[in-house]
């Protein structure tokens, strides 16, 4: 507990402790000898009172002496601590002060710093975090030079321990160190300080340990970093984490994300990239330009080219807000594509650039199971890979065709296929069904469409299985559908919300051209179970399910109750069909969360709350995504709300998703400083984490806690001693002239 006390000989402390214990006892004994004699008349009453209180007084006196001994003991301990501190640094001769200097690239960030000028006035100027660290290390060395035989070892996080430089702290140390630090700089190849410590901490000599870093979230956030910090604190109790960042810039913007939207990214198919820009300054910023450039990596590194429409523009961003941009991209050919977004006119470069490498697939592969030569099969093959004027059109799909028997016999890996489409009426082989079930069970997506000549009974027996099979409803014989009379009505109604938005606007006109002539029906009175969704239905009497989606294991089965054949309907020739299949594949991919938030959903997030640090969690309020247009850049704004936690523990934030609130987001820029609670959770105290301008030689955290405890105990004991002394009457009585009275018993 009192580590610094060990620097003084034990015998000296033993002597002091003995004195502290002996003094109260001696004073008591001397007092016993200093009795004055009084001839007393009312002896009878005094003897009576003495008999009455004798035991109690004896015990109280004993407690009082013990209490005074303890007070003396604690006073010696405090004295020891204070006297040790006055020896400044308290490090015995030969102490090595180890400094680990983070020289990672982010340390080159220029920040506003308050520096001492020659005229001894403090001035604000821009200098890098690395310069801050160097300045602080020089100050530390200068202080250490005042004490005998101190040593400082400086290691850079980009280099192994063997290359650490040792300085004897004497009068010339500052000059030598300045020369050394001046020749150093940030390195792009530098590892995180935590990684350095993981590999080389064992070799660091015992003694004070200083880590100079900018403590970015990318290195210091997360469970792993916390565990490493905890280990460091345990192994190096004299630890100081020196934060070398400066004051926040007044005009800082941060590019926090450049991510593709969830979905298929395939050549020729438009997709969106989400880009987040946060205004970390205290003022509103206007006309923010974000340049987006791209290059293909598979054809050798090329120069990045600005995309069409770049730079994107954010007209206005208030302080603390995060703008989310959705940028449309179309990649003509498959391959690895590098995207770079940059805030070209922002002052701090570290968080102004974001990169993303996307692997763009050529197509989404569909496996068709059908009988070769059948109209429906050929028809769908054409739909997914049409040829217009002799040249193939890229719809983003590529089909492979196998017969039912071939599929049943083969054991190929089906993971390469985005979906499997069962068109065959030949369901005789049970292995076919078994394989399909296994595929869906493991998370695959299966389209099922009974053929025009399907054996209804076998279909139901093999695929429905009385409710245990892949298809959720049995089917009955196909029925003709009457011609529709008006032009305003459409044959198909899209019921699923997440599909419906793709069939609005221009696509709605296309959908109205779709005609259905015949269709299979589920039995009368059939109702979809809870987890079965009807995605589309038909008009009129036949307003019965057309497309049914049902879960099976971890995967999904989409059943279309009409063969895609000219005799049955003309949907497959309609452009909306490919969109439907595309969206169904997109929506039913296994990485799409079923728990995706919808408007009105209950939001709940947990975060660690530590009240002592000024930690705050952020609730991000996002604007509605319904304004996203097809192939247009959209801007949505996230407003940050701050919660200040007053109690330690896990805090749950709850709320309802409103039309403009679809999620709680606690993410922050990776290049922003790591959250304070990370350090608190790792057991790093506030005293152990200081700014580069406030480095002390003695962290003293474990000692000071003890010191405070001793001081508190001492105060409590003093109060107790006073109370006891008053009780036993050992404190002096305020006396005036002779004959004055104390107490109310006196007579007037």
């Amino acid at each position, binding site marked *: 507990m009192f580590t610094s006390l060990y620097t003084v000989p034990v015998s000296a402390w033993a002597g002091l402790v003995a004195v502290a214990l002996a003094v109260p006892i001696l004073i008591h004994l001397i*007092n*016993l000898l*200093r*009795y*004055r*004699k*009084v*001839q*007393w*008349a*009312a*002896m*009878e*009453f*005094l*003897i*009576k*009172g*003495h008999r*009455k*209180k004798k035991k109690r*007084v004896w015990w*109280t*006196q004993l407690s009082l002496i013990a209490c005074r001994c303890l007070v003396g003991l604690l006073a010696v301990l405090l004295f020891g601590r204070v006297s040790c501190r006055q020896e400044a640094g308290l490090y015995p001769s030969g102490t090595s002060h180890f400094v680990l200097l983070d020289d990672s690239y982010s340390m080159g960030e220029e920040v506003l710093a308050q520096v001492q000028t020659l005229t001894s006035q403090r001035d604000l100027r821009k200098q890098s975090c690395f310069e801050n660290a160097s300045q602080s290390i020089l100050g530390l060395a200068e202080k250490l030079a005042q004490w005998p035989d101190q040593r400082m070892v400086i290691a850079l996080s980009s280099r192994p321990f063997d290359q650490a430089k040792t300085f004897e702290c004497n009068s010339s140390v500052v000059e030598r160190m300045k020369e050394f630090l001046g020749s150093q700089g940030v390195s792009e190849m530098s590892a995180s300080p935590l990684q350095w410590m993981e590999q080389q901490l064992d070799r660091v000599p015992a003694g004070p340990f200083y880590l100079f870093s900018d403590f970015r979230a990318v290195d210091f956030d997360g469970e792993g970093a916390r565990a490493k910090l905890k280990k460091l604190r345990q192994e190096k109790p004299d630890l100081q984490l020196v934060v070398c960042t400066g004051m926040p810039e007044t005009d800082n913007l941060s590019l926090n994300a450049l991510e593709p939207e969830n979905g298929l990214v395939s050549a020729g198919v438009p997709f969106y990239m989400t880009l987040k820009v946060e205004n970390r300054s205290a003022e509103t910023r206007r006309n923010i330009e974000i340049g987006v450039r791209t290059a293909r990596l598979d054809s050798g590194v090329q120069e990045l080219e600005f995309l069409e429409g770049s730079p994107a523009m954010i007209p206005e961003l208030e302080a603390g807000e995060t703008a989310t941009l959705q940028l449309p991209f179309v990649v003509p050919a498959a391959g690895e594509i590098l995207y770079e977004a940059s805030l070209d006119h922002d002052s701090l470069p570290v968080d102004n650039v974001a990169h993303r490498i996307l692997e763009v697939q050529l197509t989404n592969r569909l496996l068709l199971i059908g009988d070769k030569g059948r109209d429906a099969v050929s028809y769908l093959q054409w739909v997914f890979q049409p040829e217009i004027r002799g040249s193939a059109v890229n719809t983003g799909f590529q089909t492979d065709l196998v017969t039912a028997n071939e599929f049943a016999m083969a054991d190929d890996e089906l993971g390469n296929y985005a979906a499997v489409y069962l068109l065959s009426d030949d369901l005789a082989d049970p292995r076919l069904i078994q394989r399909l079930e296994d595929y869906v069970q493991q998370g695959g997506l299966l389209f099922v469409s009974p053929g025009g000549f399907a054996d209804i009974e076998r279909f139901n027996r093999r695929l429905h299985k009385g409710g245990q099979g892949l298809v959720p409803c049995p089917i009955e014989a196909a029925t003709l559908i009457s011609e529709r009379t008006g032009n305003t009505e459409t044959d198909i109604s899209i019921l699923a919300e997440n599909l419906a938005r793709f069939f609005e606007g221009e696509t709605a006109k296309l959908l109205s051209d779709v005609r259905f002539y015949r269709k299979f029906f589920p039995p009368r009175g059939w109702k979809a179970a809870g987890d079965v969704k009807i995605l589309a239905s038909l008009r009129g009497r036949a307003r019965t399910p057309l497309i049914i989606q049902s879960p099976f294991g971890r995967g999904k089965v989409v059943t279309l109750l009409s063969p895609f054949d000219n005799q049955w309907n003309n949907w497959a020739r309609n452009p909306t069909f490919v969109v439907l299949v595309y969206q169904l594949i997109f929506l039913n991919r296994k990485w799409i969360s079923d728990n995706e938030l919808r408007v009105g959903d209950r939001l709940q997030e947990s975060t660690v709350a530590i009240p002592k640090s000024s930690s705050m969690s952020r609730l991000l309020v996002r604007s509605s995504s319904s304004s996203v247009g097809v192939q247009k850049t959209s801007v949505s704004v996230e407003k940050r709300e701050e919660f200040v936690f007053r109690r330690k523990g896990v805090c749950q934030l709850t709320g309802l998703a409103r039309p403009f609130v679809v999620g709680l987001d606690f993410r922050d820029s990776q290049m922003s400083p790591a959250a304070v609670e990370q350090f608190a959770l790792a057991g790093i105290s506030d005293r152990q984490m200081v700014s580069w301008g406030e480095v002390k030689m003695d962290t003293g955290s474990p000692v000071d806690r003890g010191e405070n405890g001793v001081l508190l105990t001492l105060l409590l004991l003093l109060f107790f001693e006073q109370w006891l002394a008053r009780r*036993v*009457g*050992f*404190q*002096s*009585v305020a*006396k005036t002239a*002779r*004959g*004055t*009275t*104390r*107490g109310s*018993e*006196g*007579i007037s």
Partner: protein
Amino acid sequence: MKDSKKYFHPETIRKISRLELRSRYLVEGLLSGMHRSPFFGQSIEFRQHRDYVQGDDLRHVDWKVWARQDRFYVKQFEADTNLNCHLLVDCSNSMAYGVGTFDKFEYAATLACCLAYLVNRQKDNVGCTLFDSTLGNGVECKNRSSQLEAIAALFDRPSPDSKTSLSSVLNVFSNRSLQRGLVVLISDFFDQVDEVQKGLQLLRQQGHDVLLIHLLDRDEVDFPFDRPTHFEGMETPDQLRCHPQAYRDSYLEAMNDFRQELRRASSATACDYELCTTDMAFNTVLSRLIHRRKGQAGR
């Protein structure tokens, strides 16, 4: 006799010379004076009639009543008597305690002289006797000009050196005094309270009017000692070495109990009780005593 004047304190005497000391009860006396006697004698103030018996002086027969009722009645009148005031002053060892201007004995002596002067000035008889465990030297009750000097000379004897024993003292005193009167008892009463009560009862049975002046030192009331002290008993061989503040509460409790008991004993025997401490001004004490007597006499 060399320093007897110190007990008179002229300033004190000047302040109380206007006051009258009156006895609460009628006392027997030979001389007519200011005090009413419980015995019937020559007087101008009629009190009652009684039947004539043979041998009565015919001068006392009320002839007007005989003329009206044809029966002989004798007229009786109240008689004025002189006050006999006996001052009994404790001179035991415990009375020697005191660290201020007066110890208890000196204070008691001064108080006794003041009272003697008052009584002597109104032409009543005053006497004084010292006591400790026995009844000591004394001056008989008389009304003469040298009486005061005789009483003052009584207090010039050496310091007291014995234990208080009020019961036996009062017993002896009651046997010795033939005429009833006012008995003023000045003492710290450090004795068994029931013994004191027995003595007081004896005095009351003989018709004495008794006034107890309970004299204590301020230290005995407040017990203000704060340093470790070795207490040695003045009347007993007891010794105690202690830190006085530790026992102050219990001591004061015992002392208060004693005072209450004494007060109860005095009221049980219809005696007056007055507590005073050695730091109180004499005129205050005397004024209080006289007012109390006056009020009781008026009832």
